[in-house]
C-alpha cells in the first residue's frame, strides 16, 4: 500500500473519527449526511487544504473554529448565481403568487439559503409581484460564515446569462435595476437586503421557529441521508401552515417522507407541493 492512497478501510476509519470529533466539539452531526456526497466533498476539501489525510484535517478543525467554518463552507452548495433555476421562478410566479395575492400577510422561509443567491432572487420576484410589502422573508442556514456573506447583499456581478435566466424566470423589469455595480461586484438594493431576516438555523438539530405560508428548501436536503431527510421533512411540515406551499428541488420527492399524504403536488410545476391537511 503506497502512502499516497490510503486503503478504503483506513480512510473510512479516519472519516468516522473526524465526523465523531466534529459532532462532539462543534455540534454539527455530519454522520447523518449522505455518505457518498460527504466523502467527495471531504476529499475535495482535503485537496484544497493541501492535507494528506483526514486525521490531519481532524486535528485542524477540532482546534480551530475558522477551519471548521471552512469545512462547512465546502459542504454547502449554494447556487452560484441569481435565478440559477429559472423554471422554478417561472412556476412560482404562475402557481404560487396568485394564491399569495389573496392572503393578507405572508411569511416565507428560505431554508438552507447559503450565500443568499436564491433568497435575493426570491425577494426580487416578490417585489415585482407587488407582494414585498406584506411578505416577511426569513432565510436560514447552519453556517454563520455563509450567512455573513449573504447579509452583505454583495454578489459577483451578474452576467448576460444571469440576465437571460432572469427573463426566463418571468422577470418583469431589468435585472440591473436591482443592484449597483461596484467593479466586479453587485450591491443589491438596500430595500431588498434590509427586508430579509437572515438567521442561523440548523435543520438537522433545531426545531420549528415559526409558522410559514411558503417554505423554499431546494436541493438542501440532498446532502442528508434518508433518516435525517425524513426527520427534517417532519420539521418542515410542522412549520408550514395548512394550504401553505413547500418548494423542493427539481429531483426531490416527498415519497416515503412521513407526511407525504398531507401534500398535493401542483401539477406541471417543478416540485411545488401544497399542504392540504
Amino acid at each position: 500500500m503506497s502512502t499516497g492512497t490510503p486503503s478504503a478501510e483506513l480512510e473510512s476509519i479516519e472519516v468516522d473519527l473526524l465526523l465523531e470529533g466534529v459532532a462532539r466539539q462543534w455540534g454539527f452531526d455530519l454522520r447523518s449526511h449522505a455518505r457518498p456526497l460527504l466523502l467527495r466533498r471531504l476529499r475535495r476539501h482535503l485537496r484544497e487544504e493541501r492535507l494528506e489525510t483526514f486525521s490531519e484535517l481532524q486535528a485542524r478543525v477540532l482546534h480551530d473554529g475558522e477551519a471548521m467554518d471552512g469545512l462547512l463552507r465546502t459542504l454547502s452548495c449554494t447556487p452560484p448565481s441569481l435565478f440559477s433555476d429559472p423554471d422554478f421562478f417561472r412556476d412560482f410566479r404562475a402557481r404560487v403568487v396568485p394564491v399569495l395575492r389573496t392572503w393578507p400577510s405572508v411569511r416565507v422561509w428560505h431554508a438552507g439559503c447559503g450565500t443568499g443567491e436564491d433568497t435575493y432572487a426570491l425577494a426580487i420576484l416578490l417585489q415585482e409581484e407587488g407582494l414585498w410589502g406584506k411578505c416577511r422573508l426569513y432565510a436560514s442556514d447552519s453556517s454563520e460564515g455563509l450567512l455573513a456573506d449573504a447579509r452583505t447583499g454583495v454578489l459577483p456581478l451578474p452576467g448576460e446569462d444571469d440576465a437571460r435566466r432572469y427573463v426566463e424566470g418571468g422577470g418583469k423589469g431589468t435585472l440591473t435595476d436591482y443592484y449597483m455595480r461596484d467593479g466586479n461586484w453587485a450591491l443589491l438594493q438596500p430595500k431588498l437586503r434590509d427586508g430579509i431576516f437572515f438567521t442561523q438555523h440548523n435543520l438537522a438539530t433545531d426545531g420549528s421557529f415559526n409558522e410559514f405560508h411558503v417554505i423554499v428548501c431546494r436541493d438542501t436536503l440532498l446532502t442528508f441521508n434518508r433518516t435525517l431527510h425524513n426527520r427534517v421533512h417532519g420539521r418542515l411540515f410542522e412549520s408550514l401552515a395548512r394550504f401553505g406551499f413547500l418548494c423542493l428541488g427539481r429531483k426531490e420527492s416527498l415519497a416515503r417522507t412521513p407526511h407525504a399524504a398531507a401534500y398535493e403536488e401542483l401539477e406541471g410545476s417543478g416540485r411545488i407541493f401544497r399542504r392540504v391537511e
Partner: protein
Amino acid sequence: MSSIGMLVVGAPRAAAADVETLLTLLPRELSAPVVLVLHRGPHDALAAPLGRRCALPVVEPDDKDDLTPGRVYLAPAGYHLLVDKGSVALSVEPPEHGQRPCLDALFESAADSYGPRAAGLLFAGHEDGPAGLALLQARGGRVAVVGEDGEGGGGQDGPVERLSLDTVGAWLARLAYVPRAKVQS
C-alpha cells in the same frame, strides 16, 4: 444471481449513439441495477430515446430513490448522480471537468459503496472518467473501457480491459452469468 451488485456506465456526449447501442445489448436477466451517466446539457431529453430499444426500463431517478435490479438509472441534467448502498444520491456540487453530471462522481461513489461488487464501463474520449474508473478498479471492481483514447490506460492496478462495441456484449454476458461457485459474499 451474479456476483455483480451494480453496473455503472459513464460516457461523454460524443458516445451517446454508442450508449444507445450498449443499452440494446444489456441482457434481460442482468440481476443488477445499471447506473448511467452521460454528459448532457440542461435541455437534452435523453431517457426516452435511450430507452426506445433497451429491454430494460430507463428512468431518471429522484434523489434517494432505491436502485432496483433490471432497471437503468440515467443521471438527470444538472445533477451529479452518486450511488449509496442501494439508493441514488443526487448532488449539486459544482460541475467537474465542466460537466454535471460528471462520470468521476459516479465511479468514485460506486468504488466507495460497492467496491468489488461493482462493474464499471467507461466510454473513452473525455478527461472526465478515467480517475474514477481507476479508483473503482483499485477497490476491486471489474472495469473496462470501450473505444480508443490514445492513452494506454491502466495504472498501478494493471491494465484496463479494452473493448469495442463488438466485444462489449460478450463482456456484459460474462457479468450476468458468473458461475455460482465464484459468488463472494
